[in-house]
């Protein structure tokens, strides 16, 4: 299986994924990175995620608070706001619609795998 991922595709859905992970519980930046990596985005780096978090916070979709840590400096924990939760719901619906459409188109245009008749080639 080809695991190469289009960075532009990831960029488009990353805010939604961040909000989805945060919906499960507040988290700090690096923990979010590892959770998304564990979920399958193995090549996701903190450098990709932090600007997204920054933008979500600037747009009021997540809020943050500093939590003191016993092992080091305070960490900044993020949690979705009401606007962020609403945005996540909207993005999820949009994603499912798009995903279904893409799947339908790909299935329609996929070359038949069982046909051996050379006269039935696809255009």
């Amino acid at each position: 299986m080809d695991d190469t991922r289009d960075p532009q595709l990831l960029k488009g859905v990353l805010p939604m994924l961040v909000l989805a992970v945060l919906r499960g519980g507040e988290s700090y930046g690096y923990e979010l990175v590892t959770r998304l990596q564990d979920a399958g985005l193995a090549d996701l780096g903190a450098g990709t995620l932090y600007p997204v978090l920054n933008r979500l916070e600037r747009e009021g979709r997540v809020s943050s608070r500093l939590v003191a840590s016993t092992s080091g400096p305070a960490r900044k924990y993020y949690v979705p706001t009401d606007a962020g939760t609403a945005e996540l719901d909207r993005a999820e619906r949009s994603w499912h619609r798009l995903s279904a459409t893409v799947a339908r188109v790909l299935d329609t245009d996929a070359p038949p795998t069982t046909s051996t008749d050379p006269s039935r080639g696809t255009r």
Partner: protein
Amino acid sequence: MSTLPLRDLLVRETFLARFSWAVQDYPKPDRLVRELRRELTATATDVGMRRAVADLGHPRVLAEGYLASLDRRVPRWATGATWAALAVGAVAYLLVAYAFGTLDTLEDLGGGSVTRTALGATTVYTSTDDGLSVATEGSWQWAVLYAALFGVVFVLGSRLWRAWPSGGAVRRAPA
């Protein structure tokens, strides 16, 4: 107060210095750098400073990520100022080089004095056995030249037109 080892401190601050330069056009970049410093320090307690810094990628690419997250492009003030200062410096360097060349010529000719007037400023180049000298005076024309040069290069280098939202807005495709 940081209790990081000196080596980690250097790694972190070197990265942040490069990031700070690259992200200078972001609104309130100091705040961004402070947040990143805190994040790096906290992450380093889990994975070490080198790994924490490596995970951020190249500082310029990271800065571009932040700048791209803005709704519109912003002027690059520091870049404009740097280019403008270099342009003015280049002209000043050429004038000094011209003065040295003139004095060298005078010296090769056995000494003497020559007067040149440009843009309303008279400059006297003198070469004698006692030494070399250049005496000049300022003029408003030169002041205008320097100001215009600085201004034009600053405007172009800083992309000043981005300060106006209608001119610098990033077009976004409808979702």
